[in-house]
């Protein structure tokens, strides 16, 4: 526990020296701490006291290790004594950090370089260096502070650069007892999700019942995915469709899903489909798919929802659904372009993780040709409904 404190103290004490010797490295410049074009002013003549160690590399010298870390270019080291630039105002915030390329006490302790006797008039070389003294007895690995290491200024160990690898064997080595380990990190699983099973409040006749459900079977990256939507009014099935998809994870939050879709109602249609499903930034669940059917029919569907947690069990879920078609399909009652937009808001309460009833309100509107077909059939093109349903999975 004391080590970091001592380190901090030392860093604090040695800060003026470090600042004087500082160089603007590309990393620092990238952080906006300084600019690379900094004019370098000639250093004051070395003090007589510095004489005995003139053979040593001076501050700012580029050692092979440093060059390897990209801190500097090796040509610098050919200069016997690199001029130390005056402290730059832009470097001020860095006062508590050693500048890259400089031989700091930490670097010296690591054997990266040798600290020169200070050439600056402000620090008489003859005087004992309080900041330097304790370094000799300091635990080496403790001197590289995390901040410095994260910047690549140093490593938290005493050894010079050693080869780094992931340690992988060049060739595979068989397990002594193959088959005995049973590491089932990726078991075959299945999940059935009744996203919504709801009854829609309606003034006229039977209340429609809507089912929107999915199921998957498979492993982490590859799944068979089923999706279905059914709308039942009384004994009539108004809408029914089923998708059978292969779902493949392609990114941390995204799966592509390809397969077939079959519409049973209102009309028989078959489609090939390619979609993307996943979670967008801000935790928005997205499902978008392109459908290509017979006779050059095309369609696009999009749905997005976001769970807004009101409490650990209660959530408000706004959802937006959009449907587009490539051309008119009078039989199906859909026109080209945007055909339907649906916006809903559900208030859902988890009785348990797997079971949550909800109440909701939904507004939907038909557009373009689809709206025209609806008007011809004497149906409304805009509707606001209240629904009661359950969300469940197992």
């Amino acid at each position, binding site marked *: 526990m004391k080590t970091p404190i001592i380190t901090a103290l030392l860093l604090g004490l040695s800060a003026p020296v470090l600042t004087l010797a500082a160089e603007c490295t590309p990393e620092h410049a990238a952080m906006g701490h300084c600019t690379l074009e900094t004019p370098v002013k000639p250093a004051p003549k070395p003090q007589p006291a510095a004489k005995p160690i003139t053979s040593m590399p001076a501050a700012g010298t580029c050692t092979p290790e440093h060059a390897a870390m990209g801190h500097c270019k090796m040509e610098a080291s050919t200069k016997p004594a690199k001029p130390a630039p005056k402290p730059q105002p832009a470097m001020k915030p860095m006062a508590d950090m050693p500048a890259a390329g400089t031989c700091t006490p930490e670097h010296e302790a690591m054997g990266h370089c040798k600290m020169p006797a200070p050439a600056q008039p402000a620090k008489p070389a003859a005087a004992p260096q309080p900041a330097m003294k304790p370094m000799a007895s300091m635990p080496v690995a403790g001197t590289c502070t995390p901040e410095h290491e994260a910047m690549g200024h140093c490593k938290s160990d005493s050894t010079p650069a*050693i080869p780094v*690898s992931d340690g992988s064997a060049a060739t595979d080595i068989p*397990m002594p007892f193959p088959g005995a380990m049973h590491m089932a990190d*990726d078991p075959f699983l299945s999940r059935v999700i009744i996203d919504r099973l709801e009854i829609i409040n309606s003034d006229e006749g039977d209340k429609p019942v809507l089912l929107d459900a999915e199921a998957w079977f498979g492993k982490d990256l590859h799944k068979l995915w089923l999706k279905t939507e059914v709308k039942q009014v009384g004994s009539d099935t108004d809408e029914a469709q089923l998708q059978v998809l292969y779902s493949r994870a392609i*990114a941390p939050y995204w799966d592509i899903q390809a397969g077939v879709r079959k519409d049973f109602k209102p009309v028989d249609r078959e489609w090939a489909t390619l979609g993307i499903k996943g*979670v967008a930034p801000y935790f928005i669940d997205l499902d978008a798919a392109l459908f290509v059917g017979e006779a050059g029919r095309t369609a696009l569907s999009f749905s997005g929802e976001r769970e807004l947690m009101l409490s650990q069990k209660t959530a408000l879920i706004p959802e937006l659904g959009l449907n587009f078609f490539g051309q008119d399909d009078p039989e199906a009652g859909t026109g080209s372009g945007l055909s339907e937009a649906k916006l809903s808001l559900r208030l859902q309460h988890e009785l348990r993780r797997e079971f949550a009833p909800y109440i909701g309100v939904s507004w939907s509107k038909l557009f373009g040709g689809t709206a025209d077909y609806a008007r011809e059939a004497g149906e409304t093109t805009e509707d606001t409904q209240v629904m009661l349903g359950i969300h469940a999975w197992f």
Partner: protein
Amino acid sequence: MKFQHDGGATVVVDKGRRRFVQGLTAGSMLASLGLLSPGLLCAAPNPEVPVLEGPVFDLTIEEVAVNFTGQPGTATAINGSIPAPLLRMREGDDITIRVTNRLPVTSSVHWHGLILPANMDGVPGLSFAGIKPSETYVYRFRAAQSGTYWYHSHSGYQEQTGLYGSIIIEPRQADPVRYDRDYIVLLSDWSDDKPETIYARLKKLSHYYNTRERTLGDFVTEVDEQGLGKTLEDRKMWNDMRMSDRDISDVTGWTYTYLANGRTPTDGWEGVFRPGERVRLRFINGSAMTFFDVRMPGLKMEVVAADGQNIRPVKGIDEIRLGVAETYDVIVQPPAGAYTLFAQAIDRSGYARGTLTSQPGQKGAVPAMDPAPILTHADMGMGDMAGMDHSAMGHDMSQMGQPRVPVKTGPQVDMMAMMPMVRLNDPGIGLRNNGRRVLSYADIRNLTPTLDKRPPGREIELHLTGNMSRYMWSINGVKFADAKPIALKFGERVRITLINDTMMNHPIHLHGMWSELETGDPDYLPRKHTVIVQPGAKISYLVTADAMGQWAYHCHLLYHMEGMMRRVVVA
């Protein structure tokens, strides 16, 4: 330090094995102190955890009926006990342990932290083929070390269902630790749910067990406190990354009942002392998934050993975090009274409880749990540099944290720590600036000098990677099943640097060889078997590859280990 010992070639000799069953618990302690009449013994609060004394042990793995929560369940026990019996050995002894499997499935026992030949390490596939139903496997090895260790199944999820116990190896020479009384405190987590169910739930809904998620109310509070602009900015990174800063433990007190020596918080474990005695407590985290933060309000702890190895005593400690599989030995010297041993789960969703008391039956006050921790930018490996734009850092491997080894990206890796930092003196999430003196790795120096003074000849960098929402875990983006083994040359000294590119703490356990943690003093590197790698942090240790054979190397969180694992081959 190391020895080669081919246990399998030796003939089994049962030299009149001694077997003692004695309780370390209140009843027997009090009986030995003469403080209790025999009649009162029956009222002892704890059933006894059996104690077996070596060098020859007979263990039988079997299913037992248990009821920890009011709901009957089935657990996996050794000799009918959960935890399994305490095994007492003596350093230098040749140990024989006959393990009989009475389960319907293959089982195994791994001696966690013990330096022994590869074929005695108890890892099916690497050490042996496992112990098939109704078979007996004879483990034979020399107790090459002393200290506090533990053992557990290395098959399936049996560790979660009760197959864990403690080991004490008495030193041959005088113990540098002076104490009058000795207690094991073995912490664990129990669920009535089947482990397979827990794992499947995590795969289907990774936050299934998280009951501390961020709500709109939190947002409103934050807007109130720091304004809308700042709140939105703070939230931006998390929203962009699609991660939750409340994601501390994968499996929580929602399903877990936390146990101390097999006792629930309601029952509590009890240890009795005489005022003024130096009481040695050997904390072992034998849980499947839970980090514990242990303290005893009113008592300062002197930490004397870490992972079984003696360390330079660290005095005045209030609290210790035990990663899964870690052990710490502490000395307390309590005045008369009752002191609660309070072991909070890292996510504060529950606790294990015990009492150290000079008056049997007396209980100390149970403190309130700390607030649930919330992850910070530093925990996400983003440093603490204010004013930097965090928005684009999610998957972007910027130059600063560029891995020095290939890391396979793809759906299995949801983030890379951009500025992973060595945070040895960081006690970790939920313990920072809590007003208590919390042990950190920077405090730990081995009692005796580092044995192998050679500098490492090379470095192995391993990134702990995963995708939380898909619940996939890997190293360098490659899961165990797809990975090549790590090859070490026999006798070489190597540095292993671990970088945590996830938002969870991972306790990384290397079998067969010590992980000599670089805590600041190369001359006194503490020798650990399990090392916590904090989220967004990096840490390094030196390993002398002095143990021939194939060894497991993995995250000791039970539901991570099958992916976040490597085979280490020393040849």
